[in-house]
């Protein structure tokens, strides 16, 4: 019978292997699955390609994973947030690769990866340095660039409520990349603030249907990145 709950953060991320591509949900701290990322640091996988809108802040969560030297390449739209120092230093030192993708193109590429669309055209980045190397084509009177779907070996996301089938709802603007990354991850691992019996979430209100989710782990009181950064916490 179907029950996607796993007992611990450690077991949830146990099979993430060296060199894996990992999508990490969140926009800034909203929706960032800090506890799953910390479990991944403890687990030790390295040489990762990480897809996230940002590069974390302070020395916790995603920034801590980067600081620990586990990330070979970031695919993101904005690696220069407030309190983001770990990535810039490694980047300037040539120790981490960056693929810069406009935010909407990033979101659409992730959705495409999850929806079986290998490539699509978009007007974003036409006439800018980010069009370099991209195939261009005119439709109607306008130029577009070809962009490719993105998928991942694993997606780590955070939600507000889940059920044992992996149906999810999110909290406010913490929803952001979660639903698309759940679709695009071969294995989608979710930390949820609560887990309720099947049927308790109104089927009209489910944002991520369970078909996109493989594992759910309960993290009842997740930490807030900004509070950790303000307190000067450095993980581990």
């Amino acid at each position, binding site marked *: *019978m*179907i029950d996607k709950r796993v007992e611990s953060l450690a077991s949830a991320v146990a099979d993430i292997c060296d060199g894996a591509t990992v999508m990490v949900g969140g926009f800034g701290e909203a929706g960032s699955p800090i506890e799953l990322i910390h479990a991944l640091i403890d687990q030790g996988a390295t040489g990762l390609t990480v897809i996230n809108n940002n590069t974390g802040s302070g020395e916790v969560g995603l920034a801590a994973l980067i600081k620990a030297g586990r990330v070979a390449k970031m695919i993101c739209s904005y690696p220069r947030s407030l309190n983001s120092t770990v990535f810039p230093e490694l980047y300037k030192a040539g120790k981490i690769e960056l693929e810069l993708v406009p935010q909407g193109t990033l979101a659409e590429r992730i*959705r495409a*990866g*999850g*929806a*079986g*669309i290998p490539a699509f055209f978009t007007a974003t980045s036409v006439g800018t340095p980010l069009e370099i190397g991209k195939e261009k084509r005119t439709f109607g009177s306008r130029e577009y660039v070809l962009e490719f779907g993105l998928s991942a070996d694993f997606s780590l996301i955070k939600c507000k409520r889940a*059920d*044992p*089938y992996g*149906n999810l709802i999110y909290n406010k603007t913490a929803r952001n990349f979660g639903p698309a990354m759940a*679709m695009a991850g071969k294995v989608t691992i979710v930390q949820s603030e609560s887990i309720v*019996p*099947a*049927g308790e979430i109104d*089927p*009209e209100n*489910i944002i991520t*249907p*369970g*078909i*996109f989710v493989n594992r759910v782990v309960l993290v009842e009181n997740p930490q807030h990145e900004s509070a950790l950064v303000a307190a000067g916490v450095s993980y581990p």
Partner: protein
Amino acid sequence: MSPEMSNSEIIGRTRDEMAKRVAQDIPDGSYVNLGIGIPELIAKFVPEGREFIYHTENGLLGMGPSPAEGEGNPELINAGKRQVTALPGASYFHHPDSFAMIRGGHIDLCVLGALQVAKNGDLANWSTGGPDAIPAVGGAMDLVAGVKCIFVVTQHCTKQGSPKLVDECTYPLTGPGVVNRIYTDLAVIEITPRGFQLIELSPGVSFEYAQERTGAPLLPIAP
């Protein structure tokens, strides 16, 4: 026509028995899309100890059985436009999300009917290609292009007695090389690089009987 073929006695599995046989091969926990016709019957035969989640492409995961008489809702239907129910843990979604499930490879298994299946796995199930036919495809091409494993369940022959398992499809394709297994009234057959590999004959059906009704060689079960 052999004497057996004109025999009015029922030989091989009934529709319900075919559906039940398919259900035995569906792994526990599978996300399954069931086509219209015999595939719809499969939902009645979930084996003890297993759970399948049914997807209907018009926008529901966790589809349950037909409602009791008079309790249906015209806005809760399946892809065949028949009224259904939603089980605990079900979810509703719009068409692009529903087909992202299909086309993105998230559905584990799809069971479809067929007009013809070729020995290389080509499937024809949407049109006879007749000059007077109104072409209608629905979600069939999306399903065969996107779902990991395609089972076909069908009568072995047409009502006129022609084989549906053929050397090459003469009807327009739904998808090339997409079928994994075929469940008929007479046999269970796997598509392999060498062609139709017999897996199992239905009770009371001989190899020769099945072969006579198949439009390409049946590879016998390895002894």
